[in-house]
């Protein structure tokens, strides 16, 4: 078999330190390759998350108040707590590398275990937060939430939402010219309130509950709405809870996509740690050969860095509006 032949063929004139792969000349070359390779991988990761950050940037710059509203509803204590957890785990990871470099097996094992525990804690907290949001009915699109209807004043409901009509969302949103009328802030046309006494907004994808438009009102009052917001939140010159809610939903889409991807990386990281733990336990790493520990460390720290940005962007960006969470 080919691979077998490679190995036997090679050994005859080389001293083979443990862990040296056949294609390399020496440990130095191997370590260098591993570290460049890992960094290239991290660059790849930066761009991967970068796509999401771009999406965030675009929508946040359009709808800052909706984002602030959504963000304020997240629990800052859980978020901050998790940040601390991750930073501590980064420390233990760094220590694990340190002990690997200095060849201390037991300390290394302990550090890895600690890192894993902290990582799991992080995921646990995330799970709690997700569950929380789920029970509050603000996980967009799950469709599994209680279908509690949101009642709004008839005159702010945009007129075209027919009770119980699942198409009404599309109907209004594709009815482009009429919304443009709204843009001008003129009063609606004669027909739009025909027969709607009680408007009930039913999201065809399950309910995403959101009634609080106070931030949009605040911004309207103090006049710092963006152009997009001036169009995007209003129906007939008044703040439309439903339209505002749709923008908050975008925040939550992005929140769940970003934190979900981050959590996925944590899970992969935990798998990596488990493997490291097993290797470290069986004494595979020495002061000469520890690059797997180092490389996993790089990965772990990177995931930490992503969170360092996610935390302020998702949890903190609207706190100063004083509209507070719940």
């Amino acid at each position, binding site marked *: 078999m*080919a691979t077998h032949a490679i190995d036997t063929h090679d050994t005859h004139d080389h001293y083979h330190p443990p862990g040296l792969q056949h294609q390399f000349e020496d440990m130095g070359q191997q370590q260098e390759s591993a570290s460049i390779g890992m960094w290239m991988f991290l660059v790849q990761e930066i*761009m991967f998350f970068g*796509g999401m950050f771009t*999406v965030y940037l675009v929508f946040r710059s359009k709808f800052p108040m909706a984002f602030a509203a959504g963000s304020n509803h997240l629990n800052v204590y859980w978020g901050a707590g998790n940040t601390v957890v991750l930073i501590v785990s980064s420390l233990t990871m760094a220590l694990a590398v340190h002990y690997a470099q200095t060849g201390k097996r037991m300390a290394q094992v302990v550090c890895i275990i600690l890192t894993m525990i902290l990582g799991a804690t992080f995921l646990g907290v995330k799970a709690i937060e997700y569950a929380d949001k789920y029970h509050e009915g603000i996980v967009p*699109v799950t469709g599994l939430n209680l279908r509690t209807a949101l009642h709004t004043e008839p005159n702010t409901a945009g007129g075209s939402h027919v009770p119980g009509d699942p198409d009404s969302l599309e109907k209004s949103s594709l009815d482009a010219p009429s919304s443009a009328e709204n843009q001008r802030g003129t009063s609606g046309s004669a027909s739009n309130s025909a027969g709607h006494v009680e408007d009930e907004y039913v999201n065809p994808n399950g309910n995403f509950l959101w009634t609080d438009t106070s931030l949009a009102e605040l911004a309207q009052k103090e006049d710092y709405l963006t152009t997009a917001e001036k169009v995007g939140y209003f129906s007939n010159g008044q703040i439309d809870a439903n339209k505002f809610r*749709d923008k908050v939903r975008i925040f939550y889409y992005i929140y769940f996509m970003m934190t979900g991807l981050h959590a996925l990386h944590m899970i992969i990281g935990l798998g990596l740690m488990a493997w490291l733990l097993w290797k470290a336990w069986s004494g595979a790493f020495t002061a000469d050969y520890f690059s797997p520990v180092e490389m996993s460390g790089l990965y772990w720290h990177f995931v930490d860095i992503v969170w360092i940005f996610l935390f302020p962007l998702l949890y903190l960006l609207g706190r100063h509006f004083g509209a507070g969470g719940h």
Partner: protein
Amino acid sequence: MQNASAINSAEYIEKPTNYLNNGYTIKSWLLTKDHKRIAIMYLIVVSIFFMMGGLYAATIRLELLTPQSDLLQTQTYNKVFTQHGILMIFFFLIPSIPAILGNFLIPIMIGAKDLAFPRINLLSWYLYMIGGMLTLWALMQGGVDTGWTFYAPYSTQFSNSYVMAVGLGIFINGFSSILTGLNFIVTCHTMRAPGMTWFRMPLFVWAHYATSLVMILGTPVIAITILLLAAERLARIGIFDPAIGGDPILFQHLFWFYSHPAVYIMILPGMGVISELISNFSRKKIFGYEFIAFSSIAIAVFGFLVWGHHMFVSGQSIYAGLVFSFLTMVVAVPSAIKMFNWTATLYKGSILFDTPMLYALGFLGLFLIGGLTGLFLGSMGLDVHLTDTYFVVAHFHYVMVGGQVIAYLGGIHYWWSKMTGKMYSEFWGKLSAMLVFVGFNLTFFPQFILGYQGMPRRYASYPEELQVLNIFSTAGASVLGVGLVMPVIYLTHSLIWGKDAPANPWMLPGLEWRIASPPPTENFETTPIVTWEAYDFSDENGLDMEEARRKNIVTV
């Protein structure tokens, strides 16, 4: 240790084992970590995808023979061109040269035993296979009809074809591409043999280094974009669909952030091959080595700044359009530099017109036309009229088929003896090269005219007054098809009945020609020490021309 410069490769080097006869079991292939075997596995699969893409192309051309959509239903036609584009781009052209020739040659060219991460290399192949199989499965189930560009909101809300499955296939395949790029970069940094400085590397390696940069920096973005698209389809997440608050132009930004650089993934390796061919078949050092090397990097870097030229009429702001148009012009300059240097290399050469060189010269002409028509499109005012017409179709086939595919064929012929240890028939080679050239022009040149007349692309039926040129195009495609089927036959034929290849059939100085054909598993018995520049034909370089002439080594 034996000094590499003493190797006289004109002789047959009898090697008891080479990478091909080193194990015959299926397992010895499927679990191999040998970059050469992985390259061969890519060769097989990529060829299959090419044939499938080609069959779709043939179907397109047949349908377009008549103005009505009579051969295919409109629905089917939409799927056919989409799948043609997807298979050709993601599963054929992007992996073609890098994963086959790059994989096989980069370690050899820089004097290494293997890539830096052989296992990851194998993983890349498996990811490619999984992605490919998933896509094929989806095509079997019913296919996609979104166009290869997957524009939202059609792809996210309106199409009821297998967008998710194909998207997932491309997603997985993307990681294959990323890992290949990663492997090449690390290999170039750490695996070079003693004496193989950066500026002694063959330009083929430089081109792949640049390509790899694009792969690593660009591909993740398409991955996340497809993920978002899938999320939007699955759960109606409103990122791209305006009906629920999203922004369809954002999709285009994200898509082209990758897909424009990706067109350079699709040409840079070809440019690398052409640099090798032009220089070696002129038996002369390449003109302006450093300029060609750096222009590859420049293309890779600036290629990231121009994606908006696909969006001049999309509703992007005029200001953004101006910036992107300007940068598009800037990025054409490095290509121009390459073009001129290649031409200059021919000057005072000793030019050999073997099959690979025919392809190389064909490349120069076709890429020239393709690239220049790129300038038409990059010029905003003109693009307004030309975008989404057959002019664009003709442009990108000129650069992709006339460029990369031709380069790929040239490369395959050039290194065929090295890869397989067999010589193909030069007569058939030349014949097919010429057929391809003629057929290609006949197929795609009329499309420029069609495009300027205003024939929109992705049309299953078209106005009758446009039929004449379409008939030309279809006729050309038939010639092209014949020209492309021929290599499949004579190359396969050569595997069994071909003459055994000498180590260095053309007496060339590259490292790959200093080892046996096919190479031994370990590439080099001992690590070579490089003391010569790239394309060094001087006599001090250990190539004993007198000896070769005396022995009259016959190349073809």
